[in-house]
């Protein structure tokens, strides 16, 4: 089987995905800005499953660098999964331009640019999965820098899906609240919070079925966000969310 490239491999969701994919026999490229952090994790998966699992360094989006990356994967990929990006502090970002730019870059530009450059390497029977967020479904004051980046990324994935027409399969994943090291310390409502393992399970299930264009995980976020999107402005603007 051709390898799967996971972007943002230091994240908990990426690791959960890597474990499940290795279990299914996929060799893996684990791309991260700090590949040393996943050196042991990659070695462990590689030894356990007798597969090639290699960390890859991911730096800023520059055409030169991306072409080098493309050269490394020249023999083809079964799929690309982007787990890049995270929610940065809205309050701090309102005062700090660098933080805003970083938010928009890491949650939209970087993953989109990488996927776009590496698209020709993905086999037609393969897949492209982009982890976006429910936050992109409607801008709200609590997180609209992150939300707008994710809205952009979701639209990018939608356009890509339209263009690819299932060769390869393109999936936009919108998780709700997930308990990871990135969300540690935040007060997430326990009833609505899921785990990286659950997200990975849902994604892999969808990769088997290949029915959905957008996967909300857990499933109930589809309906929560439908309500949030429907709320007319005169109600929404009064809500403190």
């Amino acid at each position, binding site marked *: 089987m051709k390898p799967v490239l996971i972007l943002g491999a230091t994240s908990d969701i990426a690791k959960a995905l890597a474990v499940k994919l290795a279990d299914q026999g996929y060799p893996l490229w684990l791309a991260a800005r700090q590949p040393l*952090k996943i050196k*042991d*994790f990659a*070695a*462990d998966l*590689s*030894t*356990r499953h*007798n597969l090639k699992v290699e960390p890859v360094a991911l730096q800023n989006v520059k055409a030169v660098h991306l072409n080098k990356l493309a050269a490394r994967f020249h023999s083809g990929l079964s799929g690309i999964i982007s787990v890049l990006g995270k929610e940065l502090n809205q309050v701090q970002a309102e005062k700090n331009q660098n933080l805003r730019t970083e938010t928009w870059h890491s949650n939209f530009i970087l993953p989109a640019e990488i996927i776009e450059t590496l698209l020709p390497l993905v086999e037609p029977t393969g897949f492209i999965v982009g982890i976006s967020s429910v936050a992109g479904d409607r801008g709200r004051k609590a997180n609209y820098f992150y939300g707008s980046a994710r809205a952009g990324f979701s639209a990018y994935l939608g356009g890509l899906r339209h263009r690819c027409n299932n060769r390869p399969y393109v999936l936009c994943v919108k998780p709700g609240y997930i308990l990871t090291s990135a969300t540690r310390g935040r007060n997430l409502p326990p009833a609505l919070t899921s785990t990286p393992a659950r997200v990975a399970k849902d994604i892999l299930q969808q990769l088997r079925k290949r029915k959905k264009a957008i996967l909300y995980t857990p499933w109930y976020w589809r309906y929560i966000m439908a309500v949030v999107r429907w709320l007319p402005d005169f109600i929404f603007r009064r809500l403190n969310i």
Partner: protein
Amino acid sequence: MKLTNWGHYPIAECKLYEPGDLQELTQIGSEQGSFISRGLGRCYGDASLGRAVISTIRLDQFLSFDAQKQVLTCRPGATLGDIINTFLPRGWVLPVIPGTRNVTVAGAIAADIHGKNHRSAGTFCDHVIAFDLLLPSGRQLTCSPTKNTNLFRATCGGMGLTGVITSCQVRLRQVETSLVKKKTYRAKSLEETIKLLNECEDEYSMAWVDSLAPEAKLGRGVVITGSHASKDHLKGKLIQQPLLNRTGQSLTMPRLTSFFLGRATAKIFNSVYYHTHRNSSNTVPIDGFFFPLDRVKNFNDLYGKHGLIQYQCCIPLEHAPEALYLLLQKIQGSRLLSFTCVLKRFGRSNKNLLSFPLEGFSLAVDFKAGKKTREFLGHLDAIVIKYGGRIYLAKDSRMPPSIFQKSYHNLPAFCRLKKKIDPEEKISSHLWQRLKP
């Protein structure tokens, strides 16, 4: 938080840290005044308990496996069960397998554990190629039988007191199948049990001894021996999947109340166990042969809430039959509760300073923890010392320092090395505080 090991005795108030990577481990270690590392806590006493405890269970990665050299490199928290699950389907097992799969590799090194094949295979550390040790000073050294040899010999069996192992290389051994040809014998007396163990031709052997049998039948038991089955030995369905890792269902024991924990119950249990085992031979999965007690998820709860004390000693060969008879006689006459009593034949001891096995016999007995038990065990200590034996640190929770000093002749060398690499005693456990000279 309150921490305790497999015997549920003692219980200690410890600060527990679970670093996720080596950087975190080094950081935590440097910040502590005194700490001890810990694996899965399968020792019985106070070995991995201390003021601060650094657990290695998150450092459980395999790093590489070289099939040519037959060497697995892994982090300290990798478990033996994990190794078997991963490599048995590929035709590899560990050369030394203890009675439970739930032991970390570093823990296996720290206790220099043994299995049912000590006579032929020695201890776990006899198959350790090398390990990286993080010293209390922050320096990291690679230790092997030929490099930093003294440190290697002190760390193997050193109960974690020389430093923290950060990675290890362990030799694996090839097998043709995941099955064991098992033979069961019923022995009517201690003499017969000893004879069967001495004359055993199989690689693995052990004897369950009825410690509550009346004096005339003292030492009667069930001797179990086995060897890895080759493909030729497999019949029927088994041939189709020779290396399948067959694991069985597990059950959870209820914590027995003191009403059921009487000698009468134990005597009945022992009698039934003895009589239902007859001379036989069959082919069993590795899981069932080596880890029968892992099937019963919490057999250590069997002794009630105060926990259990396991007394494991070994006696040199020459006077072993005499010593074993006296020990069993004392145990039988003590009126204390004991469910399991296991006898093993050991081969030659190795050069590791605090390694337990001596060429002779090992006797391991469980007792319900309590003041009476602790007082009684002093009598057993006297017999063990008289016949030149010693007690296993990984099971110990109450041995007096004088007994330790009299029986471990390499203790002065160990202490000198420890003083040299850890002058401020940064690494210390409750076991060490109790036993150190």
